[in-house]
């Protein structure tokens, strides 16, 4: 396949309108005798190179241990420049919140993201904090189809400007690859590809499909994907890959792409035929990306996606894993880049597509045993290599300006392999012994990448490596709504551990409720739909009472106090968007996290429970326990740098003013 270059040269990307503006600015400046300044500034911004690498979830203690073993020589070099290693994280330390802090250079009160999910105070219902899909309107009918005149779409809920907008305003060319909390990518002149938060073609954050003849696979309790049982006949399996519902059809039938698998009679090999593509796979072999198209209106409207397939077993049982349907960067069905064709340009330049799902590593399939540790690690490594290729392509064509590149390896690796690595984890003995060093493997990979990046940069260039938070074990889960019920802050009409989203709540007697991973809300009169606590002194008294009791609460099974800090919204958030914020932010002690049920507004029977999942490390705890890291080839002058300083620091490298709402400081 022919490769083409996606140039980073700003002049080549300048539009006719920008050229006109630029020419006008230059002629005015010349008239005022300022031409030398204008020329000098452009010269400076063209030559200055600043690379910021985001290593999600890299933990300063784990990194320190690896450096001590002599197994992270490149990161160690950067560590030697500075005595500072820790980067203060966000409150709460959840990735969407943390990255938004870094992007805006400000707290959630400014950018408006306080948790993975927010609640509508009128209805107590959750909604996603980072983006929102809106439906098509004004449809016309054509037979069994309805064609929207005004199409639906998706909008970014993060508020305020991104620091790369300020850099672009100052004439600095910017490339930002897969930064979280930026789907759909905010409009601007920077070249961006969205990262965490980017859905699959079905609109979720990744839904796999497992095709099997083995009825021992527990399909009923499967979440994050589905199992389809198939019946081979005459040496073949016929089935279909599920897609998004066809919203152009009156009945909105689910999309399906049929395929056939032909078995070899004597060898562990099969041929997969899928929409005109034919691939031969041995058992245990992954396919390349396979294109699939869901046709919504024949010959008129379709949606392009792509999957990777693992032939897991042929005999005695057939079993095949199909990855979530990624948005195809060559023909994106949703906005994933700015300019809109940038993702396609990158795919062409790289000679093939790359994963676009916000978190392509399929943790759900691993958690449910659909993928083994080895299978998960193999495909995660493939995704890592694709995204690494993008970084080095961009560096190969980097003439100057700002470049950001994100890696999620250390985050997901720590989530999924903590129990294999930590002998104190209650599930440690159940894990594959081969996976005990898996977390450090991810760190070592990123160390090698850091070493390669350093070779691209000169002594005047800047390389900064940062993580959004560190990591902690997740041994036990706290059912915070159960604690609220037991202490008569939350009233229920009846006990029902299955009831979610407060469907059994009696709001007329409830004073507080918990939703999301760190949020606790007062049922405030005039704000909540069924609010009973008057704002003012009574609410203040309640908040103090809750703070005191939560800090004294002990896990009845272990005697440990699971909560180490309780933060007041009025003390940690600026006022702009505080109306979206929880009243209290719960800081869990390392080893504890809010339960799944707490996040979804449910109250199980027990107040704590052991975490039996492979998802065994976490960071949704007290921010004091999980700082991130910051490493730099320049001297870090700040004594206590934080995520909110990243925006001002990056702008200062180019003498550009940070976004008006930025509150951080230049740390260099």
């Amino acid at each position, binding site marked *: 396949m022919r490769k083409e270059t996606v140039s980073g040269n700003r002049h080549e990307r300048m539009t006719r309108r920008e050229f006109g503006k630029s020419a006008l600015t230059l002629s005015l400046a010349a008239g005022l005798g300022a031409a030398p300044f204008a020329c000098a500034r452009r010269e400076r911004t063209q030559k200055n190179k600043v690379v910021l690498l985001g290593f999600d979830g890299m933990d300063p203690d784990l990194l320190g241990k690896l450096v001590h073993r002599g197994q992270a020589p490149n990161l160690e070099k950067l560590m030697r420049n500075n005595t500072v290693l820790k980067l203060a994280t966000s409150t709460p330390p959840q990735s969407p919140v943390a990255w938004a802090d870094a992007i805006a250079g400000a707290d959630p009160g400014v950018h408006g993201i306080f948790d*993975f*999910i927010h609640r*509508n105070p009128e*209805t107590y*219902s*959750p*909604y*996603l904090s980072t983006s*929102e899909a*809106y*439906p098509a309107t004004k449809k016309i009918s054509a037979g069994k189809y309805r064609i929207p005149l005004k199409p639906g779409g998706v*909008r970014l*809920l993060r*508020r*305020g400007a991104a620091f790369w907008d300020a850099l672009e*305003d100052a004439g600095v060319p910017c490339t930002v690859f897969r930064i979280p909390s930026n789907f759909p990518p905010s409009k601007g002149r920077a070249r961006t590809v969205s990262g965490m938060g980017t*859905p*699959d073609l079905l*609109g*979720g*954050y*990744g*839904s796999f499909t497992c095709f099997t003849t083995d009825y021992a696979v527990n399909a009923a309790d499967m*979440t*994050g994907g589905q199992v389809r049982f198939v019946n081979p006949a005459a040496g073949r399996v016929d089935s279909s890959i599920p897609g998004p519902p066809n919203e152009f059809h009156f009945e909105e039938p689910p999309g399906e792409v049929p395929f056939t698998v032909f078995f070899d009679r004597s060898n562990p090999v099969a041929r997969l035929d899928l929409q005109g593509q034919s691939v031969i796979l041995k058992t245990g072999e992954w396919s390349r990306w396979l294109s699939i198209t869901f046709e919504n209106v024949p010959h008129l409207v379709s949606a392009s996606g792509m999957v990777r397939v693992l032939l897991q077993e042929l005999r005695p049982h057939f079993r095949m894993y199909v990855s*979530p349907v990624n948005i195809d960067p060559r023909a994106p069905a949703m906005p994933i880049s700015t300019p809109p064709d940038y993702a396609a340009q990158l795919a062409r330049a790289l000679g093939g597509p790359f994963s676009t799902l*916000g*978190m392509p590593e399929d*943790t*759900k399939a691993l*958690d449910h045993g659909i993928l083994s540790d080895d299978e998960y690690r193999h495909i995660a490594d493939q995704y890592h290599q694709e995204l690494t290729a993008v970084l080095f392509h961009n560096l190969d064509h980097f003439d100057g300006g700002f470049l950001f590149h994100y890696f999620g390896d250390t985050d*997901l690796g720590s*989530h*999924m392999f903590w129990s294999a690595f930590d002998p104190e984890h209650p599930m440690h003995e159940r894990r594959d012994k081969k996976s005990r060093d898996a977390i450090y493997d991810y760190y070592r990979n990123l160390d090698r990448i850091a070493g390669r990046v350093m070779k691209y940069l000169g002594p005047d260039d800047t390389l900064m490596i940062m993580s959004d938070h560190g990591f902690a074990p997740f041994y036990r889960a706290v059912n915070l709504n159960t604690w609220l019920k037991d202490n008569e802050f939350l009233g229920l009409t009846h006990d029902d551990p299955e009831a*979610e*989203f407060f469907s059994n709540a009696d709001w007329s007697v409830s004073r507080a409720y918990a939703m999301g*991973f760190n949020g606790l809300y007062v049922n405030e009169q005039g704000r909540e739909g069924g609010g009973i606590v008057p704002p003012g002194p009574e609410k203040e008294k309640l908040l103090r009472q809750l703070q005191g009791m939560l800090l004294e609460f002990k896990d009845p099974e272990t005697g440990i106090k699971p909560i180490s800090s309780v933060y007041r919204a009025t003390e940690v958030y*600026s*006022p*702009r*968007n505080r109306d979206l914020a929880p009243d209290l932010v719960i800081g869990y002690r390392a080893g504890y996290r809010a339960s*799944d049920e707490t*996040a*979804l507004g449910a109250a199980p029977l027990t107040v704590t429970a052991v975490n039996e*999942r492979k*998802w065994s490390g976490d960071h*949704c705890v007290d921010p004091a326990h999980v700082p991130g890291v910051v490493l730099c080839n320049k001297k870090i002058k700040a004594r206590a740098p934080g995520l909110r300083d990243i925006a001002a620091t990056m702008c200062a490298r180019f003498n550009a003013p940070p976004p*008006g*709402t930025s*509150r951080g400081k230049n740390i260099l």
Partner: protein
Amino acid sequence: MAAKIEIGKDLLKRADEHARAAGYSSVSEFVAHLIERELAGAAAPAADNEEQARKRLQGLGYID
């Protein structure tokens, strides 16, 4: 890029006093917030979708 808007002196004085009392760093930030809030009101999440929230959290892996 920052732009200027005109506002009466009396209103500016009142806005400045309120911004300080409410903890804003400047009156500009306060005014920008008011405008953003109005615009966001028109774009508030159209429909609560409990199932979507659950599926997305499951998709991320944070819940089972």
